[in-house]
């Protein structure tokens, strides 16, 4: 029987996985990049951290903290437009570093923290473009099927 992520983290102190999906673009690309997850320490995570959390339906998600609240985090993927309320107890680990292709980046690196802060700060500008794209896709579908 295969082990759970929680079991691997508890035993080895790390978990490595290829990224799947597009919800963390542009930073992480579907099936091309890798993340290294470490157990969460005693302190609460910070804004812009990337926790790995398990939803009640069992699905594991790696999205970004945009706000820290008492007992929970407000989370959103870099390429998603809906916020999620994630209680502390859902969090099973945190990304400590990743490989974008051959390039190695740590979560404490200044350039990475700058990207994370800038990308989320630009959300008010990105969201209208996203809405335009969604609307254009709907119009195109209506006109051309």
């Amino acid at each position, binding site marked *: 029987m295969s082990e759970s992520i929680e079991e*691997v983290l508890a035993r080895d102190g790390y*978990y490595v996985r*290829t990224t799947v999906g597009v919800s963390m673009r542009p930073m992480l690309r579907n099936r091309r*990049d890798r993340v290294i997850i470490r157990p969460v320490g005693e302190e609460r995570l910070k804004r812009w951290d990337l926790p790995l959390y398990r939803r009640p339906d069992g699905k594991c998600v790696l999205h970004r903290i945009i706000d820290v609240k008492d007992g929970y985090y407000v989370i959103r993927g870099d390429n998603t437009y809906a916020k999620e309320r994630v209680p502390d107890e859902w969090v099973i680990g945190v990304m400590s570093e990743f490989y974008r292709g051959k390039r190695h980046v740590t979560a404490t690196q200044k350039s990475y923290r700058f990207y994370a802060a800038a990308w989320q700060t630009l959300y008010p500008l990105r969201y209208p473009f996203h809405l335009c794209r969604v609307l254009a896709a709907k119009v195109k579908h209506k006109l051309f099927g």
Partner: protein
Amino acid sequence: MRINPDFTIQKVGASSYVAVPVGKTSETFHAMVRLNETGAFLWKRMTEKDCTEEDLVAALLETYEIDAETAARDVHRIVEILRDSRVFA
């Protein structure tokens, strides 16, 4: 023997490495392949070119202070583990 080119190797500790696949192979291979320094050294050789166990033993003897019998035994054990892990092309 040659490692499937979809596999990438990452250093996760002072002498610990983990290999996971990207691309098509990642759709069906969901495990991590854990390697120590020796395993990672042999892994890198097998990503560069097709190797026999003799090639790998020779590479170990060139690089590490180790006797031939130990090198052959270690290579055989690691190759068997990698074969069971289905990482060869």
